[in-house]
């Protein structure tokens, strides 16, 4: 298999050099996309080798948004580091916090009270809806339709408003604390949340009507960027990307955390592994998130929203890797504690990093017109790739 990779890389380099006798020398165009190309989702850059309109090789270049968060983490206390976690995948900030707080709690052997767990689930799922709305809008833009973008963002605004009621922030929340959440659910939240969910279901049906069944969109997205299940696992893909490739795998189901096993919901999956499936999986996931929120709102237990934690958080020496289902896939935190108030080492594993790693493999032999769609279907956020 090692040879396979090497061969792939070599093959392409050789094509341009070796010419059959009597043939014209094949000439390729090298074109630079990014770092501020309109559809690279932030500051992602790659150099593509084109044969006409066909991409034969790309070389991704990342790191434009590198902030050294892992190094900063080693120099800050556990609590001070928490707000930075929001800045990784800024469309799904709650899910990052979720992972980090769970990891630290597990290191300290404490557990959030039931009410806090339910609030966390509500937040995480609301944020998942937000992130997927952004995806929906971006997907529309990439396919050349402008309307879905505004539809998605209009709806996202309402979800953000709900989270603003809870956390006070709109994009980066810093709402979860180690051992619970920062404040209780405000009065009036339940009614607004229920109204929102009702509206959201209507809107989702409208999205499907506007965009999912569109003939041109289906033609554009079906059968491009196909990833088989084996390849997806081999490339460490996770989240909706993996699920679209025919694996009904969700960390919320496999390693249930924070009471996800109490709710009744399904894991959407696709069986073609193409862009359209990835799109549909995300759209269906939004409906499932709404289901979870509904149940969590109804069964929100009474009690504390925070457990008692020491004033200075000093987990005992130890290490663990903990993962949660982020909005884009598996968000993992590998934390090594040496017993002091600062983590000895924090490694953040983000899904987009692995998805971009596979980009060369997926983009090969597709057209330039497909690249925004394929890249968009991974829903990469450069903040979480570069860290």
């Amino acid at each position, binding site marked *: 298999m090692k040879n396979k990779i090497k061969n792939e890389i070599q093959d392409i380099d050789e094509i341009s050099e070796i010419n059959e006798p009597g043939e014209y020398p094949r000439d390729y165009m090298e074109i630079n996309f990014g770092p501020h190309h309109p559809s690279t989702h932030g500051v992602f850059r790659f150099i593509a080798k084109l044969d006409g309109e066909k991409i034969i090789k790309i070389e991704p270049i990342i790191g434009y948004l590198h902030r050294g968060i892992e190094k900063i983490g080693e120099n800050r206390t556990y609590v001070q580091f928490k707000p930075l976690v929001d800045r990784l995948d800024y469309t799904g900030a709650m899910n990052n916090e979720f992972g980090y707080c769970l990891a630290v709690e597990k290191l300290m052997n404490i557990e959030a009270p039931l009410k806090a767990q339910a609030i966390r689930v509500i937040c995480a799922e609301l944020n998942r809806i937000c992130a997927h709305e952004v995806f929906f809008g971006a997907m529309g833009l990439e396919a*050349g*339709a*402008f309307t879905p973008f*505004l539809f998605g963002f209009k709806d996202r605004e309402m979800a953000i408003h709900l989270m603003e009621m809870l956390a006070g922030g709109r994009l980066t929340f810093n709402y979860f604390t180690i051992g619970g959440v920062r404040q209780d659910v405000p009065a009036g939240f339940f009614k607004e949340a229920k109204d929102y969910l009702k509206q959201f279901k209507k809107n989702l049906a409208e999205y499907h009507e506007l965009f999912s069944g569109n003939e041109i969109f289906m033609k*554009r997205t079906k059968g491009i960027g196909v990833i088989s299940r084996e390849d997806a696992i081999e490339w460490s893909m996770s989240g909706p990307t993996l699920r679209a490739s025919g694996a009904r795998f969700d960390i919320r189901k496999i390693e249930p955390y924070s009471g996800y096993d109490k709710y009744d919901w399904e894991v959407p999956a696709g069986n073609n592994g193409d862009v359209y499936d990835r799109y549909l999986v995300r759209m269906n996931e939004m409906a499932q998130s709404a289901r979870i929120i509904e149940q969590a709102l109804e069964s929100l237990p009474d009690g504390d929203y925070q457990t008692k934690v020491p004033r200075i958080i000093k987990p005992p020496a130890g290490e663990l890797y903990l993962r949660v289902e982020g909005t884009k896939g598996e968000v993992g935190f590998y934390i090594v504690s040496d017993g002091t108030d600062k983590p000895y080492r924090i490694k953040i594993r983000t899904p987009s990093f692995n998805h971009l790693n596979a980009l060369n493999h997926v983009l090969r032999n597709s*057209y330039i*017109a497909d690249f925004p769609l394929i890249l968009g279907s991974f829903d990469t956020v450069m903040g979480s790739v570069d860290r």
Partner: protein
Amino acid sequence: MVWWIALLWALLKLMIVFLFIFLTALILIYMLRKVMGHMQYRMGPRHHGPHGIWQTVFDALKLLGKEDIIPDGIDKYVYIWAPIIAFIPSLTVFTFLPFAPKLVAANFEISLFFVLALLGLSTISLLMAGWSSNNKYSLIGGIRGAAQLISYEIPLVLSTIGVVIMAGSLNLTEIVNAQTRIWYAIPQIIGFFIFFTCGLAEINHTPFDMPEAESEIVSGFNTEYSGFRFAAFFLAEFVNLFIICALAVLLFLGGWKPFTNPVAAVICFLIKTYILIFVAMWIRSTFPRFRLDQFMNFGWKFMLPLSLANIFITGLVVLTVDKIR
């Protein structure tokens, strides 16, 4: 007539056409913003004047007042001439469009043929802009545009032949006059469909806006253009939209029929045209973009045979009807 009166008269006509074009372009841009805005739960321009009607005027003034940037390493003359060549055909076409029974700047026998020939010229401007800009995105956009226009020119022209057979004339005014009894959109429904679709493709309108697909190749052929050169491309795009819709109205929707009074005729003609433009904008705010190869397949393998079949059937029917009479 004394020669200078004739010259003045011609110049006056040209001035009116020119003014009309600018006004049309401005109105269309404003209309596009408003239509798309309201379709997307937003208001569109709001601030300058009532409902923001001066917005596009200021935008145009801003574009005209900007610095004329000519990048390094370009093919200078081609670069400079490309927007002008994009604009001139659109301008010229207007002289042949009849707005009412006798309201046409230049009325001659093969005006339809001439209009279609002029529309095809805009290809060259895309190629020139793409080639001269010294930018790979522009190059891809220009080549896409050329490929697209060539393949859609053919079904576009063929679809009008059905109308020409039925009307027995290439003069636009006479084609309209021949539609007294029935609009050609009814017997020529296939032709109308082909004409409108290919027309949208011809002017790079969504869903066929591959030459300037902003998510793929930044802005396509006009990536390197700014200021009034960009404005020329931009205005030409909207003028072309008007022309295609006006042509569709003249050929298929009965032009100014059922009115003959000049004022009513012009108003009727414009209303019909603007309804078609609204449809085009509706399409623009709904559909995503095609991919180039799918789009070419659609053109060559579906549109072209369909338009040929349309001609064949029309000819057959017209001949039979003649024989029976």
